[in-house]
């Protein structure tokens, strides 16, 4: 997997969603999705070889993901953490840093948020919920700060360090769930389930549609998509992060602190993943349990790439990926295909999306040169 991300790294340079024209915007948003369809087409061939009718399979998938209120809600439930993780990945990518530590950061965020909610159950929701989110963000940020610092200080490759921190976080969670944080009810009942106590109701995120898990965390994630956009393109820090990612040498020559900005971007990325974790706890499970991360830390990277590393592109990309995850389950049940094939399909999608990014880049480059010629050149000759 990391190879695909590295290939993509240079392409971060390509995407500069300034005020591009309509065509460019269309190209950038549409083509990755066409890539998804192409990947599905190839997977259809594989399905055929397994003597499965791809039309049946895909309609099951579509039906499962978006065909009903409950399916759609479930897709959005999955899209929420994907979006938050993806936004973080996007910020890091813009600074030329690859955050593969989403899983660990999600865990840290959920632990901190849960601790907060369990420790202050009597606080009113209006205080407790933001407090939990803040604490979750900070914990995730801390888990992003560590590899950031290692990179800035000792040039430790962030891919390695974030993956290792994932493992540490996972073991830490296991330890807590088997011991200090284990649900007292479970202990009393003798089930000893590896899960935390249930969160106080004051910390629950509102459900948006009855009898579904869709929760208000979706709004928070969408809000952050806008914030991240503003952050990257309207603030001095965002400007520096993008400069560092596009040309570290020129940044250095201009007095921009390259290692600091990379560390900062990884810290923020961690924070957003941490937020995804605490929101997942408060909105869906209302407690920490095993398998809480659901692979969002990795899938979020793919969503970020599919969204062209642009905050507002990651929104539909996350929804699509949420749908794919939900739909894939339905499909697997409907046509009885091995789970590994689902992963293969997702992998193909990554490949096609990265490939189409390169293709778009070439087209836009050609058009840009033409555009420069076309635009009236301000004749400034003395």
């Amino acid at each position, binding site marked *: 997997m990391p190879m695909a991300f590295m290939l993509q790294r240079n392409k971060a340079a390509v995407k500069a969603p300034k005020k591009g024209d309509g065509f460019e915007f269309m190209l950038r948003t549409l083509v990755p999705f066409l890539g998804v369809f192409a990947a599905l087409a190839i997977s259809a061939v594989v399905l055929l070889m397994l003597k499965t009718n791809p039309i049946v399979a895909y309609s099951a998938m579509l039906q499962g993901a978006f065909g009903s209120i409950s399916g759609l809600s479930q897709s959005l439930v999955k899209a929420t953490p994907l979006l938050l993780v993806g936004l973080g990945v996007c910020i890091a990518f813009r600074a030329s840093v690859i955050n593969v530590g989403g899983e660990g950061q999600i865990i840290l965020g959920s632990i901190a948020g849960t601790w907060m909610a369990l420790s202050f159950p009597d606080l009113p929701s209006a205080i407790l919920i933001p407090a939990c989110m803040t604490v979750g963000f900070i914990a995730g940020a801390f888990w992003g700060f560590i590899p950031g610092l290692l990179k800035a200080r000792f040039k430790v490759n962030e891919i390695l360090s974030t993956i290792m921190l994932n493992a540490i976080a996972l073991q830490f969670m296991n330890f807590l769930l088997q011991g200090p944080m284990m649900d007292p009810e479970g202990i009393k009942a003798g089930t000893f389930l590896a899960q935390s106590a249930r969160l106080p109701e004051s910390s629950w995120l509102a459900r948006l549609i009855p009898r579904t898990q869709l929760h208000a965390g979706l709004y928070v994630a969408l809000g952050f998509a806008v914030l991240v956009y503003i952050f990257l393109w309207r603030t*001095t820090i965002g400007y520096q992060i993008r*400069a560092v990612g*596009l040309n570290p040498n*020129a940044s250095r020559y201009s*007095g*921009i602190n390259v290692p600091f900005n990379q560390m900062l971007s990884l810290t923020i990325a961690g924070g957003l993943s941490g937020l995804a974790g605490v929101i997942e706890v408060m909105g869906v499970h209302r407690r920490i349990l095993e398998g809480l991360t659901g692979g969002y830390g990795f899938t979020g990277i793919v969503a970020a790439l599919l969204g062209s590393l642009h905050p507002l592109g990651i929104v539909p990309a996350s929804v699509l990926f949420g749908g794919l995850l939900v739909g894939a389950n339905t499909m697997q049940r409907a046509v009885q295909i091995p789970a590994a094939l689902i992963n293969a399909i997702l992998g193909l999608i990554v490949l096609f999306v990265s490939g189409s990014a390169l293709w778009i880049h070439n087209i836009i480059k050609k058009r840009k040169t033409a555009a420069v010629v076309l*635009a009236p050149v*301000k004749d400034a000759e003395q």
Partner: protein
Amino acid sequence: MAGMIQQVQMTGIVKRFPGVLACNNIDFDLHAGEVHALLGENGAGKSTLMKILYGMYQLDGGSIAIDGAVRRFHSPADSLDAGIGMIHQHFMLVPTMTVAQNVALGQSSDKKFLLDLKTVTERICELSAAYGLKVNPNDLVGHLSVGEQQRVEIIKALYRGASIIILDEPTAVLTPQEVDDLFIILKKMVKEGHGLVFISHKLHEVTALCDRITVLRDGCKMGTRPAAGVERHELIKMMVGRDLKELSHRDYKPGAERLTITDVRASGDRGTETLKGINLSVHAGEILGLAGVSGNGQLELAECLIGIRKVDSGRILLDGLDIASMKLNERIAKGMAIIPEERMRDGAVNDFSVQDNVFLHDHTDKEFRTGIFLNFKKMAAHAKKLVGEYTVKTPTLETPIKNLSGGNIQKLIMARELARKPTVLIAAQPTRGVDIGASEYIHQRLLMQRDAGTAILLTSEDLDELYALSDRIAVIYEGTIMGVFLRQDTDIQTLGLLMAGIRPGDAPKPDLPIASCEG
């Protein structure tokens, strides 16, 4: 060689690209046994005109006649068949194949089905002996120097029987020594009856090599002149459209010492000591030229001065204040500015817009932000002002800077740095790879800045340029200063020798030794 083309005649050539008339009714002719230069600034249409002859572009008007017969080339294969070859600015070779394989590669073996490398190798050896094209057919192309790769390209064209060969800016990638070698080869080819088109924007090369010179400007032909006896300024006027301003004679009235470099030692990227005790000083209102072959420590010195390379020992005083251990931002705040040598690597963020590139440093300036938010209005106003003031040609402020020409990028970098009104400016190779018009402009700006009281340290490999601009000239060789001279006390020969590390034993010591120079 039988069937050599005697004459090529291009008449009334018109070529349009979306929104630009790249060739506007151009006549061009070439005879066997001559080198005909196409001279013009970037974007004049030189490459386009020749790509039409080579069949890469289709003409929109006009005609091409070979030995009197009108021909139309639909592809490079067509024109190759007719005996016309082109060597592009970017070579088209496969690095993982040998020279012989590369030469054989383009040959469609319509008769033979097997690759007959032995015959190819023999033919390469013949060609290489006949024209002095030294290459080993069995070398991997990836292992060859740029100059050698170019020879392979020439052999490729000759192998395919090209009697007319077009060379698109062949010297742009070569070292001076390689340029000399190339010219010897080209002259031999002319003697053998080939006709050559030599594309360039360098005047001295064109006059040294060619028989006739055709000048293009903005897609129009400005005229053809015989190279013998042509006046340099006439060619410049044809290229640029106006006379270049003479650099006026200037009074040298140095002010206070602004920058003092004492015993500065520093290591290069490989860890070896590259600066071995540099002593220099630059005064307000003077340009100190630093001459030297590149790689003798100029880059490292500039980096030490601006603060992105660690100084191992020594002092750097800016207006009397030791800045040797200060961060770059502090130095900039104290009045330091740099025009980096590697413009595209260190001076600009290619994918950023023109406007964003203006603020690589200044975006933190209170004037251009409100809290952490960028103030786009003020940024745009400032960028617009600079673009106008420094005559940077760009379609819009939003255009990615990589779409601008080298000269315009350099003007923008210069505008950005000078807008801060620096007290000390380090200008590292400011005109390298920049066309004549922009170079002239940059020179004028540097002089204006000098007259405004800035202390300027100018490095350049181009001695003529240094000699024309500097008030004093220092020579750097292997990380030491070989000497510092007042401009009028030295000449280009002396400087050239010093640059090669040779101290002319009989040359008189400069009457002003370093110390008294400063006083």
